[in-house]
Protein backbone atom coordinates (compact mmCIF):
# COMPACT_ATOMS: atom_id res chain seq x y z
CA UNK A 1 0.00 0.00 0.00
CA UNK A 2 2.84 2.36 0.89
CA UNK A 3 4.59 1.57 -2.39
CA UNK A 4 1.41 2.35 -4.33
CA UNK A 5 0.85 5.61 -2.46
CA UNK A 6 4.42 6.61 -3.13
CA UNK A 7 4.08 5.83 -6.85
CA UNK A 8 0.78 7.68 -7.07
CA UNK A 9 2.31 10.75 -5.42
CA UNK A 10 5.22 10.59 -7.87
CA UNK A 11 2.78 10.26 -10.81
CA UNK A 12 0.79 13.23 -9.61
CA UNK A 13 3.88 15.39 -9.02
CA UNK A 14 5.26 14.40 -12.43
CA UNK A 15 1.99 15.35 -14.13
CA UNK A 16 1.89 18.74 -12.41
CA UNK A 17 5.52 19.46 -13.31
CA UNK A 18 5.11 18.54 -16.99
CA UNK A 19 1.89 20.49 -17.40
CA UNK A 20 3.16 23.58 -15.61
CA UNK A 21 6.51 23.76 -17.40
CA UNK A 22 5.78 22.46 -20.92
CA UNK A 23 2.11 23.19 -21.44
CA UNK A 24 1.58 26.13 -19.08
CA UNK A 25 -1.53 24.46 -17.70
CA UNK A 26 -2.38 23.84 -14.06
CA UNK A 27 -3.77 20.52 -12.91
CA UNK A 28 -5.66 19.48 -9.81
CA UNK A 29 -6.09 15.98 -8.48
CA UNK A 30 -9.45 14.39 -9.24
CA UNK A 31 -10.65 12.41 -6.25
CA UNK A 32 -13.97 11.42 -7.79
CA UNK A 33 -13.33 7.75 -8.62
CA UNK A 34 -16.50 7.58 -10.72
CA UNK A 35 -15.09 9.99 -13.33
CA UNK A 36 -13.78 8.24 -16.44
CA UNK A 37 -12.65 9.34 -19.87
CA UNK A 38 -15.50 8.70 -22.30
CA UNK A 39 -16.05 9.07 -26.03
CA UNK A 40 -13.30 9.62 -28.58
CA UNK A 41 -9.97 9.68 -26.78
CA UNK A 42 -6.22 9.65 -27.27
CA UNK A 43 -3.97 7.34 -25.27
CA UNK A 44 -0.18 7.69 -25.20
CA UNK A 45 1.78 4.73 -23.87
CA UNK A 46 5.43 4.13 -23.22
CA UNK A 47 7.15 1.02 -21.93
CA UNK A 48 10.11 0.87 -19.57
CA UNK A 49 12.45 -1.76 -18.22
CA UNK A 50 15.19 -2.13 -15.64
CA UNK A 51 14.69 -1.89 -11.88
CA UNK A 52 11.03 -1.39 -12.66
CA UNK A 53 9.36 -2.69 -15.81
CA UNK A 54 5.99 -2.04 -17.34
CA UNK A 55 4.07 0.63 -19.16
CA UNK A 56 2.80 4.13 -18.46
CA UNK A 57 -0.38 5.36 -20.12
CA UNK A 58 -1.78 8.86 -20.52
CA UNK A 59 -5.43 9.09 -21.58
CA UNK A 60 -7.78 12.00 -22.18
CA UNK A 61 -10.69 12.75 -24.48
CA UNK A 62 -10.12 14.14 -27.95
CA UNK A 63 -11.08 17.72 -27.04
CA UNK A 64 -8.65 17.73 -24.12
CA UNK A 65 -5.86 16.20 -26.26
CA UNK A 66 -6.47 18.91 -28.85
CA UNK A 67 -6.32 21.63 -26.21
CA UNK A 68 -3.08 20.20 -24.75
CA UNK A 69 -1.47 19.92 -28.19
CA UNK A 70 -2.42 23.50 -29.07
CA UNK A 71 -1.00 24.68 -25.75
CA UNK A 72 2.26 22.84 -26.38
CA UNK A 73 2.54 24.26 -29.87
CA UNK A 74 1.61 27.78 -28.77
CA UNK A 75 -1.35 27.88 -31.18
CA UNK A 76 -4.40 30.14 -31.02
CA UNK A 77 -7.78 28.46 -30.44
CA UNK A 78 -8.86 29.66 -33.90
CA UNK A 79 -6.03 27.75 -35.63
CA UNK A 80 -6.47 24.31 -37.17
CA UNK A 81 -4.60 21.36 -35.75
CA UNK A 82 -4.36 17.94 -37.40
CA UNK A 83 -4.84 14.54 -35.81
CA UNK A 84 -1.14 13.57 -36.40
CA UNK A 85 -0.10 16.76 -34.60
CA UNK A 86 -2.35 15.85 -31.65
CA UNK A 87 -0.91 12.31 -31.62
CA UNK A 88 2.66 13.63 -31.70
CA UNK A 89 1.96 16.03 -28.82
CA UNK A 90 0.21 13.29 -26.82
CA UNK A 91 3.26 11.07 -27.30
CA UNK A 92 5.57 13.82 -26.09
CA UNK A 93 3.46 14.46 -22.99
CA UNK A 94 3.64 10.73 -22.22
CA UNK A 95 7.39 10.75 -22.78
CA UNK A 96 7.92 13.74 -20.49
CA UNK A 97 5.59 12.29 -17.85
CA UNK A 98 7.61 9.10 -17.69
CA UNK A 99 10.85 11.10 -17.65
CA UNK A 100 9.68 13.20 -14.72
CA UNK A 101 8.26 10.15 -12.91
CA UNK A 102 11.47 8.21 -13.49
CA UNK A 103 13.59 11.03 -12.06
CA UNK A 104 11.50 10.85 -8.87
CA UNK A 105 11.66 7.09 -8.29
CA UNK A 106 14.95 6.08 -9.86
CA UNK A 107 17.08 6.98 -6.87
CA UNK A 108 15.25 4.54 -4.61
CA UNK A 109 14.46 1.87 -7.21
CA UNK A 110 17.48 1.87 -9.53
CA UNK A 111 18.02 2.57 -13.24
CA UNK A 112 14.98 2.51 -15.53
CA UNK A 113 15.28 2.55 -19.33
CA UNK A 114 12.46 3.88 -21.48
CA UNK A 115 11.26 3.16 -25.02
CA UNK A 116 9.78 5.63 -27.49
CA UNK A 117 6.10 6.53 -26.96
CA UNK A 118 3.23 5.34 -29.12
CA UNK A 119 -0.26 6.82 -29.38
CA UNK A 120 -3.63 5.36 -30.29
CA UNK A 121 -6.95 7.13 -30.81
CA UNK A 122 -10.34 5.53 -30.23
CA UNK A 123 -12.93 4.76 -27.58
CA UNK A 124 -12.67 2.94 -24.24
CA UNK A 125 -8.88 2.90 -24.21
CA UNK A 126 -7.30 1.21 -21.22
CA UNK A 127 -4.04 -0.53 -20.39
CA UNK A 128 -4.38 -4.00 -18.94
CA UNK A 129 -1.80 -5.44 -16.52
CA UNK A 130 0.01 -8.62 -17.53
CA UNK A 131 0.59 -11.55 -15.20
CA UNK A 132 2.30 -10.57 -11.96
CA UNK A 133 1.97 -6.88 -12.70
CA UNK A 134 0.51 -4.23 -10.46
CA UNK A 135 -1.50 -1.21 -11.36
CA UNK A 136 -1.32 2.31 -10.05
CA UNK A 137 -3.21 5.32 -11.40
CA UNK A 138 -4.08 8.93 -10.78
CA UNK A 139 -6.76 11.14 -12.25
CA UNK A 140 -6.35 14.87 -12.70
CA UNK A 141 -8.50 17.69 -13.97
CA UNK A 142 -7.40 20.58 -16.13
CA UNK A 143 -8.60 24.10 -15.29
CA UNK A 144 -11.58 23.68 -17.65
CA UNK A 145 -12.58 20.43 -15.92
CA UNK A 146 -11.32 17.95 -18.52
CA UNK A 147 -10.28 14.60 -17.09
CA UNK A 148 -6.86 13.02 -17.62
CA UNK A 149 -6.05 9.47 -16.51
CA UNK A 150 -2.44 8.48 -15.93
CA UNK A 151 -1.84 4.80 -15.38
CA UNK A 152 1.13 2.71 -14.45
CA UNK A 153 1.28 -1.04 -15.05
CA UNK A 154 4.44 -2.26 -13.42
CA UNK A 155 6.55 -4.91 -11.80
CA UNK A 156 9.42 -3.97 -9.49
CA UNK A 157 12.43 -6.25 -9.66
CA UNK A 158 13.46 -7.33 -6.18
Amino acid at each position, binding site marked *: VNEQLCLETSLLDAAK*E*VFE*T*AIFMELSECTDASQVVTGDAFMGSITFKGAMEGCMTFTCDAACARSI*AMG*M*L*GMDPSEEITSP*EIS*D*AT*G*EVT*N*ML*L*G*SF*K*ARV*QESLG*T*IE*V*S*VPSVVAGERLHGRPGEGMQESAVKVNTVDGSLIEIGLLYRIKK
Partner: protein
Amino acid sequence: MRAEVKSMGKSLMIVDDSVTMRRIIMRTIRMSGVEFEKTEEAGNGAEALAKLKAGPFDVVLCDINMPEMTGLEMVKRLRTEVPERAGTKVIMVSTESSQELIEGVMADGANGYITKPFTPEAFAEKLKPLLN
Protein backbone atom coordinates in the same frame (compact mmCIF):
# COMPACT_ATOMS: atom_id res chain seq x y z
CA MET B 1 13.10 40.23 -17.00
CA ARG B 2 15.54 38.04 -18.92
CA ALA B 3 18.54 39.63 -20.60
CA GLU B 4 18.45 38.92 -24.32
CA VAL B 5 21.48 37.29 -25.87
CA LYS B 6 21.69 37.72 -29.63
CA SER B 7 24.13 35.29 -31.12
CA MET B 8 25.63 37.17 -34.03
CA GLY B 9 25.86 34.77 -36.93
CA LYS B 10 25.44 31.68 -34.76
CA SER B 11 23.54 28.66 -35.99
CA LEU B 12 21.44 26.07 -34.20
CA MET B 13 20.13 22.63 -35.15
CA ILE B 14 17.34 20.98 -33.15
CA VAL B 15 17.27 17.19 -33.45
CA ASP B 16 14.17 15.36 -32.23
CA ASP B 17 11.86 12.83 -33.85
CA SER B 18 8.85 14.77 -32.57
CA VAL B 19 7.83 17.84 -34.56
CA THR B 20 5.94 19.03 -31.49
CA MET B 21 9.03 18.79 -29.32
CA ARG B 22 11.13 20.66 -31.88
CA ARG B 23 8.57 23.48 -31.81
CA ILE B 24 8.46 23.47 -28.00
CA ILE B 25 12.25 23.67 -27.84
CA MET B 26 12.27 26.56 -30.33
CA ARG B 27 9.62 28.42 -28.34
CA THR B 28 11.41 27.79 -25.04
CA ILE B 29 14.68 29.11 -26.46
CA ARG B 30 12.89 32.29 -27.54
CA MET B 31 11.46 32.58 -24.02
CA SER B 32 14.96 32.14 -22.59
CA GLY B 33 16.05 35.34 -24.33
CA VAL B 34 18.55 33.60 -26.61
CA GLU B 35 18.39 34.19 -30.34
CA PHE B 36 20.11 32.38 -33.19
CA GLU B 37 20.70 33.78 -36.64
CA LYS B 38 20.00 30.47 -38.37
CA THR B 39 17.96 27.50 -37.15
CA GLU B 40 17.47 24.10 -38.74
CA GLU B 41 15.77 20.90 -37.68
CA ALA B 42 16.43 17.18 -38.06
CA GLY B 43 14.17 14.23 -37.24
CA ASN B 44 16.82 11.76 -36.13
CA GLY B 45 20.56 11.31 -35.60
CA ALA B 46 21.27 10.18 -39.16
CA GLU B 47 19.62 13.25 -40.64
CA ALA B 48 21.49 15.49 -38.19
CA LEU B 49 24.83 13.85 -38.97
CA ALA B 50 24.26 14.31 -42.70
CA LYS B 51 23.51 18.02 -42.16
CA LEU B 52 26.60 18.41 -39.98
CA LYS B 53 28.76 16.77 -42.64
CA ALA B 54 27.30 19.16 -45.22
CA GLY B 55 27.86 22.34 -43.23
CA PRO B 56 28.79 23.78 -39.83
CA PHE B 57 26.48 24.44 -36.90
CA ASP B 58 27.55 26.20 -33.71
CA VAL B 59 25.08 24.45 -31.42
CA VAL B 60 23.14 21.19 -31.75
CA LEU B 61 20.31 20.37 -29.32
CA CYS B 62 19.76 16.64 -29.58
CA ASP B 63 17.23 14.15 -28.19
CA ILE B 64 18.48 10.70 -27.19
CA ASN B 65 15.67 8.23 -27.88
CA MET B 66 15.07 8.47 -31.62
CA PRO B 67 14.39 5.88 -34.30
CA GLU B 68 16.99 5.17 -37.03
CA MET B 69 19.91 6.70 -35.14
CA THR B 70 19.87 7.67 -31.45
CA GLY B 71 21.36 10.87 -30.14
CA LEU B 72 24.06 8.88 -28.37
CA GLU B 73 25.25 7.33 -31.64
CA MET B 74 25.02 10.67 -33.41
CA VAL B 75 27.38 12.32 -30.89
CA LYS B 76 29.86 9.43 -31.04
CA ARG B 77 29.93 9.45 -34.84
CA LEU B 78 30.12 13.25 -35.02
CA ARG B 79 33.20 13.24 -32.81
CA THR B 80 34.92 10.35 -34.61
CA GLU B 81 33.83 10.78 -38.24
CA VAL B 82 33.59 14.56 -38.63
CA PRO B 83 36.70 16.09 -37.02
CA GLU B 84 36.14 19.36 -38.90
CA ARG B 85 33.07 19.90 -36.67
CA ALA B 86 35.05 19.64 -33.42
CA GLY B 87 33.89 23.15 -32.54
CA THR B 88 30.19 22.23 -32.70
CA LYS B 89 28.69 22.21 -29.22
CA VAL B 90 26.20 19.40 -28.64
CA ILE B 91 23.67 19.60 -25.82
CA MET B 92 21.54 16.56 -25.19
CA VAL B 93 17.86 17.20 -24.42
CA SER B 94 16.16 14.12 -23.04
CA THR B 95 13.81 12.59 -20.50
CA GLU B 96 16.69 10.23 -19.64
CA SER B 97 18.18 11.55 -16.44
CA SER B 98 20.38 8.87 -14.91
CA GLN B 99 23.78 10.13 -13.83
CA GLU B 100 25.42 7.14 -15.49
CA LEU B 101 23.90 7.99 -18.87
CA ILE B 102 24.74 11.69 -18.57
CA GLU B 103 28.37 10.91 -17.68
CA GLY B 104 28.54 8.44 -20.57
CA VAL B 105 27.26 10.84 -23.20
CA MET B 106 29.50 13.64 -21.90
CA ALA B 107 32.47 11.27 -22.17
CA ASP B 108 31.44 10.52 -25.77
CA GLY B 109 31.63 14.18 -26.71
CA ALA B 110 28.45 16.00 -25.65
CA ASN B 111 28.97 19.45 -24.11
CA GLY B 112 25.89 19.65 -21.91
CA TYR B 113 22.65 18.06 -20.85
CA ILE B 114 19.11 19.36 -20.36
CA THR B 115 16.37 17.11 -18.99
CA LYS B 116 12.76 17.18 -20.19
CA PRO B 117 10.51 18.77 -19.04
CA PHE B 118 12.66 21.87 -19.21
CA THR B 119 12.31 25.56 -18.42
CA PRO B 120 13.52 28.63 -20.36
CA GLU B 121 16.04 29.13 -17.53
CA ALA B 122 17.58 25.71 -18.23
CA PHE B 123 18.23 26.71 -21.85
CA ALA B 124 19.56 30.13 -20.88
CA GLU B 125 21.97 28.55 -18.40
CA LYS B 126 23.39 26.11 -20.98
CA LEU B 127 23.29 28.26 -24.11
CA LYS B 128 24.50 31.66 -22.94
CA PRO B 129 28.02 30.49 -21.98
CA LEU B 130 28.36 28.86 -25.42
CA LEU B 131 27.43 32.04 -27.24
CA ASN B 132 29.65 34.50 -25.45
